[in-house]
Every structure is written in structure tokens, then in C-alpha cells.
């Protein structure tokens, strides 16, 4: 009992909160939350890189086209993107897609467009002289981007990527809406079953999310300080 709250409902089913029915059944809870976040982040990294490179293209059509896609997705709530995927993917792919992949697709689309802005800012943040120097040593524009600009830009972007991972962990909670049994879904199930302990259950998962996100927030701050330090010497 903490301040009139009774957390036995949480302690009793602790493994369920962390792993769902795993290993006897599918993975759920914190495990699934992290799985969704890691897979989506990895895919968003690729998507963001592609979209980001397209948006700094010298071809105006590509540049404007990719910017239009990025701005459209950024102008929508994530929930809307999830509903669109939930609604469109089965009819495009003929059904049979598990809900967790619907969510991964939506999270990837959504986060890619945010990542692309980070990539774009990172590329534009590298002094122009670098490209000019690379090209005057005989590299093509593509080679200069790939071997000179991107490696430097990506290094500067690391803290922002970690921050995106924090947002991603928070965003996976929306998977609840299409019935994917990640942490928030597990909590609502528990709440529906027990009825009497909503305060305890939601406070508990809030603390779990906080611990996960705060750890990565601190990591990103540490990386930022380290990068600043390395640049200074």
C-alpha cells in the first residue's frame, strides 16, 4: 500500500506486463513495445535517409515531390496514419497482415518523415566547402555525398536519432488502438479485468515508460556533450 493505493494487482501479474504470454504464447507487454520501437526505428532510419536525400536532390521534381510527401505526413496525427494503414493495407495486400506489422508500417512512415528533416538539416549543416573540395579532387557529386558529406552529417545526427527513439517508444502506445498487445494494451486489459485498480495500473506503466524513455533521453544528452567535446579538440 502506497498512499492508499494497492499495487498487489500489478505485482501478481508482473511477468504479464513485461512479456505478455511469452514463452507459452506471443510476446507482449514491455517486450513487444521495445520490439515495435526497435524494428520501426531501424526501418525509419532507412526511410528517413532516403526521403532526406531526395529532399536535398538537385532535381526540382524529386525535391518538391519528396517535400510534399514529408509535409503531408507531418501534417497528420499519428493516429490518422495508423487508421489509414489499418484500412488500406489489407485491401492493397489482400489481407492477412498481422496488426503489429500495420503499426510498424504506420510508425515507419510517420517517423521517416520526421527523420528526413533531421537528415536534411544534418546534410545542409555541413559547410558547402566540403562538397566543393570533394568535387574538385575529382569525385562525382554522388561520391562526394556518400563518402564525404553523409559520414560527417550522420555523426552529428546521432543524438537526434536517439531522441526519435524516445518518441518512438512513446508512440508505440498508440498500437493499443488496433489491438496489438503492447504495454498499454496489456494495461487496459488488466484494467478491464480487475476494474478496481486503474490508478495503480496506469501509474505503474507510466513509470515503466518513464524509466525506458528517460534512460534514452540521458543517453542522447551524453552523446551530445561527447560530440561537442570531440568537435572542440
Amino acid at each position, binding site marked *: 500500500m502506497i498512499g492508499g493505493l494497492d499495487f498487489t494487482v500489478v505485482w501478481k501479474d508482473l511477468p504479464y506486463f513485461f512479456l505478455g504470454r511469452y514463452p507459452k504464447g506471443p510476446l507482449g507487454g514491455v517486450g513487444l513495445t521495445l520490439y515495435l520501437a526497435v524494428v520501426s526505428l531501424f526501418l525509419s532510419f532507412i526511410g528517413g535517409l532516403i526521403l532526406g536525400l531526395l529532399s536535398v536532390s538537385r532535381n526540382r521534381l524529386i525535391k518538391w515531390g519528396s517535400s510534399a510527401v514529408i509535409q503531408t505526413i507531418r501534417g497528420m496525427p499519428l493516429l490518422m496514419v495508423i487508421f489509414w494503414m489499418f484500412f488500406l493495407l489489407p485491401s492493397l495486400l489482400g489481407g492477412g497482415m498481422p496488426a503489429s506489422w500495420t503499426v510498424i508500417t504506420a510508425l515507419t512512415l510517420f517517423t521517416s518523415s520526421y527523420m528526413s528533416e533531421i537528415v536534411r538539416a544534418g546534410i545542409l549543416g555541413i559547410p558547402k566547402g566540403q562538397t566543393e573540395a570533394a568535387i574538385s579532387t575529382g569525385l562525382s557529386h554522388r561520391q562526394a555525398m556518400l563518402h564525404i558529406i553523409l559520414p560527417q552529417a550522420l555523426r552529428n545526427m546521432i543524438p537526434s536519432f536517439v531522441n526519435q527513439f524516445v518518441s518512438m517508444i512513446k508512440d508505440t502506445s498508440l498500437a493499443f488502438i488496433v489491438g496489438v498487445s503492447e504495454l498499454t494494451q496489456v494495461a487496459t486489459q488488466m484494467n478491464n479485468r480487475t476494474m478496481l485498480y486503474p490508478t495503480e495500473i496506469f501509474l505503474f506503466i*507510466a513509470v515503466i515508460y518513464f524509466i525506458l524513455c528517460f534512460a534514452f533521453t540521458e543517453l542522447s544528452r551524453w552523446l551530445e556533450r561527447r560530440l561537442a567535446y570531440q568537435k572542440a579538440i
Partner: protein
Amino acid sequence: MHYHFDWAVVTGGKYYEWLVSGVYVTVKLSLVSIALSFLLGLVIAVMRMSRFGPVRWFAHGYLEFFRNTPLLVQMFFWYFGSYKILPQSVNDWLVKGDFEFAAAVIALTIYTSAFIAEDIRSGVRSIPKEQMEAARSSGFSYIRSMRYIILPQAVRLTIPPLINQFLNLMKNSSLAMTIGVAELMYQARQVESYTFKGFEAFSAATLVYLAMSFVITGLMTLYDRMVLQPIKGR
């Protein structure tokens, strides 16, 4: 794909009215929450800069906790779980009114205020220390230097991130559908389940969200062009 499009569903009649009422609730929810978030964010930012340790620590804890927890979980907490930690009188008062709306406002306000507080703080910190020293040495008190020298400059710099937070808040307000607030997302879903015209309903809602985002982004560009650029140019 054998889908029969029927745009009439969302361009007039009962379902159109549902969507319009959803837009109204989204706008109301966003405006009420941004106003409250700004006030709360200002208080937290001032507390965060306080010279008294415990106040500063409290504000820091508040910021970190609410920024690093999903909004959806916070919304569920206030909607389902707040009755155990709030006094009975507050509960009675909340239940008498529109409780869903109130819970959504509380969750959105607390979540957004944590972000706004950081924006305000970095706005104040971006004003060089010398400004304060110069103000103090020319005879202004601490409060007056803040009031006449530091804050007017800091507020100008804080407005673009604030507009950005408003944009986020507007999009985040869609989460209120999960606790039964009949905002735009909720109504689009209602229309879908009543008519099976999901494509049309979601398209209409998407267009409205995009239009609102566009207007808010436009405000930011306008502010930048009309207020910030002239200052920088000088």
C-alpha cells in the same frame, strides 16, 4: 479493388454534420489546452529557474516525468485513475460537467506544458547575461530588468517554438477519441462504422487536419517574416 466511392456521404447531410461538430470539438480542445499549457508552462519555467533548490528540483522532475511518458497513458490515467488521487469535491465537480473533455484537457495541458516550459527557459537563456548586468547597473531592479529588458526579447524568440507546440497539440488532441471525446478523429471513425465509407471519412478528416496544420505553419512563417527577420536584419 472493387470499391464504390460515395463522396456524398461527407459533403452533406447527417454525416457531414458529425464531421463538422468533430472539427469544432478539435478546435475547442486545442485552443483551451494551449492557453492553459502556456500558463502552466510559464509557471513551471519560472520555477525551473528559481534560486530555491526544492522548487527547482520539483519543476525539473515534473518536466522529465511528463515529457518521457506517452500522452495516451497520461490520458488514461486522468480519465480512469484520477478519482483515487483527487479530493472528493473535485471529483464531484468534474463528473457534473463533461468529464471526458475535462480529462483530455488536463492530460493535453500537463503534457504540453512540460514542453513549453523548456522552450520558454531556453528562450530566456538565449538572452546574453550581459543584458541583465547592464540593466541592473543602470539602476533597474531584478524584476524590472526581467519585465522590461529580458522577457520582451525572450518572448519574441519563444513564439516560433510555441506555435510548433500548438501544432503538435492540435495533432495530439486526436488521442482524446480513446476516452470518448467526440473530436474529429472520433467522428471520422463513427462515420466509417455507420456507413462503411471509411475511405471518404478518413480522407475528409485528413484534409481538415492538413488544412489546420497548414494554417498553423503559415502563422509561423508569417511571424518569422514580419517580426523576426526585421530584427535580425538590423
